[in-house]
């Protein structure tokens, strides 16, 4: 990229073509976008792990050209015929156009450092990777595929929770995924969760909370209730670092915090320990 901009000139984050300078959301340093991409979208200045889309995540995580997607054609039926300020059907179409994905999770078979796995990756830019019937079904199929092929299951989670626009159908996906994980557990299948920012609400309280091993990216938000709701309920400020990966590790709910660059190695290591 020839047209690099000098550091002292502020650059709007949005609308800047790839390869230019951007400002880190956390430390506010200007960083060279290409360098950030090479660092797996981790800020070279402060180590902030940016949210990444499913396709980029898969590229970062799996051995080149080994990802075989399945269940890619599943789409929402808009079961409630839901309409808020805009109809849900329209919202879905907009999100599909924006992301190029049909819904908020991508599932498939892949290799990580030569080990075959079933992999699911959530897409935080698709309606906050909220879980409706399609996410629930795809995650369930990934679990069932792991059982069938006797392979470890790796889920990279990120979600705002259940998808309101599918109402109770979203809520029961929590039960559906959890029940499938019970069947995986029955056959001693290995399930590794990689909790990324943000893993919350209905997803935290279902398949993201049920890993045999739960890894988390540094500073990822992990929790159940929204921080604003909690602050309003208790009528007080929340403590520093509340609901972060580090907070969850300290309270005993996360096994290891792993930097993005180390994920491949760590996942492979756990698979080897579990003899899968």
């Amino acid at each position, binding site marked *: 990229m020839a047209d690099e901009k000098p550091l002292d000139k502020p650059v709007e984050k949005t609308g800047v073509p790839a390869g230019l300078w951007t400002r880190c959301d956390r430390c506010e340093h200007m960083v060279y976008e290409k360098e950030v991409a090479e660092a797996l979208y981790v800020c070279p200045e402060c180590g902030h792990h940016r949210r990444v889309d499913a396709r980029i995540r898969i590229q970062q995580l799996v051995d080149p050209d080994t990802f075989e997607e399945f269940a890619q*054609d*599943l*789409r929402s*039926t808009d*079961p*409630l015929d839901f309409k*808020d*300020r805009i109809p849900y059907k329209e919202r879905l179409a907009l999100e599909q156009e924006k992301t190029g994905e049909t819904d908020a999770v991508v599932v498939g078979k892949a290799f990580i450092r030569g080990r075959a796995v079933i992999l699911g990756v959530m897409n935080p830019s698709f*309606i*906050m990777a909220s879980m*409706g*019937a*399609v996410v*629930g079904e795809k995650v*369930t*199929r990934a679990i069932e595929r792991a059982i069938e092929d006797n392979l470890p299951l790796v889920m990279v989670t990120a979600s*705002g929770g*259940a*998808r*309101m*626009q599918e*109402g*109770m*159908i*979203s*809520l*029961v*996906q*929590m*039960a*559906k995924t*959890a*029940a*499938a*994980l*019970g*069947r995986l557990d*029955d056959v001693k299948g290995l399930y590794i969760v990689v909790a990324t920012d*943000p893993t*919350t*609400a209905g997803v*935290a*309280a*279902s398949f*993201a*909370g*049920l890993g045999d091993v739960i890894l988390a990216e540094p500073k990822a938000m992990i*929790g*159940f*209730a*929204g*921080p604003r*709701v*909690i602050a*309003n*309920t*208790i009528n007080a400020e929340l*403590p520093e670092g509340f609901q972060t990966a580090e*907070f*969850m590790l300290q309270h005993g709910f996360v096994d290891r915090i792993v930097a993005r660059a180390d994920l491949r190695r760590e996942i492979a290591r756990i698979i080897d320990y579990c003899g899968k």
Partner: protein
Amino acid sequence: MSDVLTNEPAVSSAGSGAPSIGGFLEFEKPLLRIQQDVEAMEREQRDTGRDLTADIKQQRVRFKTTLKRLYSNLTPWETVQVARHAKRPLSTDYIQTVFRDFCELHGDRDFGDDRAILTGFGRIGGHRVMFVGHDKGKDIKQRMACNFGCAHPEGYRKALRKMRLAEKYGLPVVCLIDTQGAYPGIGAEERGIAFAIATNLMEMSRLRTPIVSVVIGEGGSGGALGIGVADRVAMFQHAFYSVISPEGCAAILWKTAERRKHAAEALKLTSRELLKLDLIDHVIPEPVGGAHRDPEAAASSLEKYLIGTLAELKRLGLDSLVAKRQERIRHLGSFFESPSEIRPELETRSPRRSTHRVTRLGARFTHPEIVPA
């Protein structure tokens, strides 16, 4: 921060129950007027000695017909208000009216005894069961003690612990759901509320004893589902069950809690809608005017349903019971399987228990007991 994160409703500091005037809900104003008329006539009769018996009787009949009319077609928002009614019977009432010889068992053997979920042995008809139910509390002191029915992780862990005890001795589990949601607080997060609920969902899906769950009032999100995975899920007629409170949904999607009526409508949270969506198995009828107007009638409806359902579930072998439960849960939700399916003529709902459009389930399904639909 995404606003989808506000998935749990805030606990109302005003206590449970919908706002009411003289014991009447907003939509019951016509009833209030009739009652005031009756009272006025009674006063007049007393003071003047005029005989108004016939008029009073007529007004009483009018009261009944108006009540029947109002309750025969409640809007979703009105349903929410009835479900939250301050006088609506609670778990503690049903413990007295439906169950006999209740033997409470406290605590999760780990952290404490969450009063928001009550557990213990009880008898119903000829069945010995494990009772698990949210308690919202009757008065302000009780409500504070049980956090208005909003459970902490220890509540869900206590519930699971007692369910395991039930499993060990072959007792069916009866869960009564009545909560705004799990408690949104610092302690709840520190003690892993998400993980506690997730564990319950998984363990209840494979618990080797019958489970019946009934939403008796409010079915609030994950906090309700945390004791809601079951062989049979029923709702009282005027209960509601929702992924998020109408207020929370309105605040997020419409950017103002004022649109709660619209949200209640859109969320399809009534027993009738959820039965249609195939998410629950049965609607338990309520007396005219709601459970709070005739708690005994409500109790007897519940008792009848539980006794019949428990008998039916106990007839199944444990393997087949659990397999059927798994199958039931597996088929929750509908979706299109391929892009070509997204055509309007295909958007008609298929009948009960097969709302999904999957035809290839058989190959995916590995549980030996389960025959794919």
